[in-house]
């Protein structure tokens, strides 16, 4: 039985394991994916931890089309919480932020590393994938889970099958990016 399913059924050890496994990775992910303004002005550590604990707390009502959608679900929950916090903070920006426009234009470390265009095209293409492909990409590429961890989360018996599924998902992502480039 997958780790996620056990956690959904109220297994406390499975919930603790989910938390221990994902919290450090989600912190690193948030560091790379959030703009400097958000990291400087919001307590992203708390946002990440609260989002993970809330998402785990709501697992009973979590009903993805695929068993594997947990990583994408958590990352989206963090993005939503940060967007809400930025909107709330945006109602009372400091004088410096108003003049610099940093609240809206500050790039994330990820955007700085790959360029805004590539970052934007990657994010857009990711949203066009199926839920299961998107989950595999986020789990492997963004959170750095290894194939055995992805297999355990998804309840897959074979690391090899998981590896092939991740490879196919990345190919489909590349296909969407190529299609968007031609459009």
């Amino acid at each position: 039985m997958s780790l996620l399913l056990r956690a959904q059924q109220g297994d406390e050890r499975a919930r603790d394991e989910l938390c221990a496994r994902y919290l450090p990775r989600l912190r690193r992910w948030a560091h790379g994916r959030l703009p400097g303004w958000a990291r400087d002005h919001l307590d992203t550590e708390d946002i990440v931890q609260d989002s993970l604990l809330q998402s785990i707390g709501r697992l009973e009502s979590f009903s993805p089309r695929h068993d594997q959608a947990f990583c994408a679900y958590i990352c989206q929950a963090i993005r939503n919480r940060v967007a809400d916090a930025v909107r709330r903070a945006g109602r009372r920006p400091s004088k410096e932020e108003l003049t610099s426009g940093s609240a809206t234009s500050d790039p994330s470390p990820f955007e700085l590393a790959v360029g805004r265009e590539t970052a934007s095209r990657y994010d857009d293409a990711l949203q066009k994938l199926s839920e299961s492909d998107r989950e595999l990409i986020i789990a492997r590429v963004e959170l750095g889970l290894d194939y055995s961890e992805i297999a355990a989360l998804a309840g897959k018996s074979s690391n090899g099958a998981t590896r092939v599924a991740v490879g196919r998902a990345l190919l489909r992502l590349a296909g969407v990016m190529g299609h968007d480039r031609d459009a």
Partner: protein
Amino acid sequence: MTETPDDAWLIALANDVCDGRRIEWESIAPPTATPASRKVIAELRRLASVVDAHRVLGEDEAPPAAEA
């Protein structure tokens, strides 16, 4: 949208990208590669930078090793 090629060698290449392996991009395509496959390779090359960025940013944030 046309279907994305998913030959075994392309899947293996995609896994190498995911795993952050060093790839000789200029010589990776076999002579029999189709234009569609070459297009996917070009996007995989861009995705390699996305994978690399996530890995490097994750390492930057990793907690320091405990002192002996």
